[in-house]
Structure formats: C-alpha cells, structure tokens
C-alpha cells in the first residue's frame, strides 16, 4: 500500500520546523518515528498534505533529571531507548507497559512524543502517563507552554494541541518514597492493543488509576480513586471503573466483556502497585 501524495520537509533546525508547521496551519503533520502515522497514511485514513520530518533533532532525544527532581524525556526518545534506561525502568508501571508496545522493530523506531500525539484510545502508554500526572512541554513558533497529560486527548485520535504545536518533552514526577505503581493489560491476541489496560500509582497519599482501551479516550477513573482513598477494598472499589464512559465495542470484545475485563485488570494493577509500594 502506498500513501496518498504528500510534500516532504526536512528542516535544518527545530525553529525552522516549528515555523513550517505554523505556516501550514494544520495541513502538515510532524513526522517522528512514523510508526503510528505511516500505517494510517498507507491505509489512507490520514492524508496530510505535507510531512515535516522532525525525526533528526537530537535535542528532542534522551532522558535527563530536572533540577526540581522530575525526570524529563525528550519527545523523540524511542521505546527501545526508554527500555534501556534504568531511570525510566525504575517506574514500575513503565517497566510493565513499554515492553508491551508494538514489537521490537516498532520499539526501535517509535517515539514517546509521536505516540502521545497520535492519541490512540487504546494506547498502552497513555494510561501510565495519565496515572503519573505527566506534564508535556509543547512548542510552537509562538513559544512554549506546558499541558497536563490529563488535558491532552480530546477524543479518539484527536488532541487539544493547536495546529503548529509540537510535543517536545514529557516530564514525570521523580522517585517518591512509599509509592508503588503497575500497569496491567489484557492484550488483544492478534493486534496486541489492550482490550482493557489499567495503570495504578498508589501509596504516599496517591491513589491514581488510569484506564486505556475501554473508553473513547484514555481516562482517570476518579470514582475508583475516591473509593480507594476512602479505604474501600480493591475488589469493590473497581466496580465503578467504567462509570461515565461510552465503552468501546467490537466483534472481539463487546461492551459487557470489555467492562468486565477492565475491572479484572484494574484489580490486578492496583494490587500489584500496592505490593510494590511495600
């Protein structure tokens, strides 16, 4: 399969790239690793007029500690690089989630920022990022702002980013005493995408539970979080995991099954996170 025709830009600098994306006013898409965008272009589900290849910018790659103790991940950092980084793998839920993304070849090329911008409702990484309350640094020709992960997705494959904005960095809270986390998913056996996936961050006053693959976009299960805070046992607390959601359905996993599996993986994720919190 061959994508529809598009123009291609490989700017020499990030500033030039931001200028091109801004000028295009939504008709151009940034190209990072291409592991989400190129497949939908080949299926002609996406037909951008222009691709702006940002994949070569080393300043958007790599992991570093910020002065305030948070961990910053460059948007172009590949899954393979994250898997090889002990600072990233120290987060229990990331060590659970990242090996389940795509396959070796996809992880060699696919990037964290590209995946977040793709906004797949069944993205594995969205749940851990939501549960961690990740902060995204977003740049455009006009400047820089930060966006809470919770405010990124606007629906299936749609984000709240304005045309011309590019995710450049993802910031995670640093290590915290008494906090444990886990991600548990039931993958579809053929596609590998989660039928239901739940990330939990608990302990140290935190009770964060995020769900992917279940609703029209990944979400925080706030009713479950409130129940956990109130001391409700896990098995009962997860009863509200799909409350308020329009649960996805397909020939392989209907609404009832998907909702039931969401409870199962939520229970397992929360229990595992509590064990790791010690």
């Amino acid at each position, binding site marked *: *399969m*061959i*994508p*529809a*025709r*598009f*123009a*291609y*830009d*490989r*700017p*020499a*600098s990030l500033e*030039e790239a931001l200028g091109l994306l801004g000028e295009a006013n939504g008709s151009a898409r940034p*190209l990072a690793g*291409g*592991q989400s965008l*190129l*497949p939908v272009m*080949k*299926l002609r589900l996406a037909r951008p*007029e*222009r*691709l702006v*290849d940002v*994949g*070569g*910018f*080393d300043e958007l790659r790599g992991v570093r500690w910020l002065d305030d103790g948070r961990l910053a991940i460059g948007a172009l950092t590949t899954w*393979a690089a994250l898997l090889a980084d002990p600072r990233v793998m120290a987060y229990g839920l990331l060590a659970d989630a990242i*090996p389940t993304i*795509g*396959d*070796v*070849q*996809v992880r*060699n*090329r696919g990037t964290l920022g590209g995946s977040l911008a793709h906004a797949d409702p069944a993205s594995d990484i969205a749940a851990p990022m939501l549960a961690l309350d990740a902060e995204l640094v977003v740049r455009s020709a006009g400047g820089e702002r930060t966006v809470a992960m919770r405010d990124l997705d606007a629906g299936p494959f749609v984000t709240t980013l304005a045309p011309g904005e590019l995710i450049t960095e993802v910031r995670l809270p640093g290590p915290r005493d008494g906090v444990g986390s886990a991600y548990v998913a039931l993958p579809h056996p053929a596609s590998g995408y989660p039928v239901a996936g739940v990330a939990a961050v608990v302990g140290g006053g935190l009770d964060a539970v995020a769900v992917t693959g279940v609703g029209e976009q990944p979400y925080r299960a706030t009713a479950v979080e409130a129940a956990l805070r109130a001391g409700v046992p896990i098995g009962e607390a997860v009863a509200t995991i799909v409350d308020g959601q329009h649960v996805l359905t397909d020939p392989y996993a209907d609404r009832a099954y998907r909702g039931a599996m969401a409870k199962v993986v939520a229970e397992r994720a929360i229990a595992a996170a509590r064990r790791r919190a010690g």
Partner: protein
Amino acid sequence: MTVRAGHASLRVEADARVEIRLTVNGSPEVVDVEPRRLLVDVLRDDLDLIGTKVGCDTSQCGTCTVHLDGRAVKSCTVLALQADGHEVATIEGLTAGRPAGPDLQPALHPMQAAFVEHHGLQCGFCTPGMIMTALDLVARVAEPSEADVRTAIHGNFCRCTGYQSIVASVIAGAEAMRAENDPAHGSAGPAASETPA
C-alpha cells in the same frame, strides 16, 4: 539522520522527486524517489534486493525487516527519505566477505546456517525478516534465552513452523556467532571469516 548545524534543509513537493543517498550493505547508493516512496520498495524495486519480502504491508508480519543504522526496523513502515544519509543492511549483505565454498557460493552466515541445520524454515518467506530480527537481538544479547528469542520475534510471523524450530535456530545461531567471534571457545562456526557481518 542527524541534522547537523548549518545542514541545508530539504523540501520536496508532492509531485516532485529527489535524489537520496544511502549506504546499503556497505555500498553507497543513489536513488531517485518521490516523498511517498517506502524503503522496502527502494530495496526491492530500485536496488533489486528481493531477499527482503513484503507480507502484510501493514507493519505486522515482519518479513520486510532490515537494519537501519544497526537496528531492526520494518521497511514497509519507513519512508525512503527517512533512510537518506543512513545505513541499511539487508539479508543479502550477510554473506559479504565470506569465503566461497566448493560450489563457489559464499558461505552462509552462522545464523543462516543455523536455520538450515535446525529446520527454522519451511516455505522460507518469513526467513529474511526472522534472521535480521535475530541478528538485532544477538547484537544486544550475545547469549539469548528462549524467552529473549520469543520476545524478539514477537513482530515476525511464521505460518509454517509453529516457531519452535525458529527459536532453536536463533539460539544455535547465536552460539555459532559467539564461537566464530572467539574461535578459542566452542566448536567453530560453519565459516570463519575475517570480516564477520
């Protein structure tokens, strides 16, 4: 590609073509492409390297796997323009520099020989991708476990073997590569070479 400071920016309109330069199996190549051209099509159609196959064409089956800058990628999901200035290795490159056998054909790479020895293929369509993925694994994990191999080939489909013989082949191939790189230990691989691939 690392865009160096001062490196000229590149713009190609949708109906235009551009020359790209890439290194394939160690040889510099220049190919004229339109922006939507895929790397796998350049390899197969422009460079006649038909060892790399197209199976699903949707980034799932893995038979189009090649190495881009030393890492396994699915070449059906890489633009040719993304390989501009980069190094590509395909299945054809594995025998380069290996001494010819009595049949005047170059000796097989130890990983290829292991697939023959351990029945790691039946129809053979998935084999180029399996081997390129296996070599990506062995480059990082010289002595892979069965679990390592199964994780590594998660993105490579075989509809013939049931995978058991492929896993055995990769483990044996890795062992033969270790022996070849360190001939003092273990039995020698099928072909000792001065320039291991």
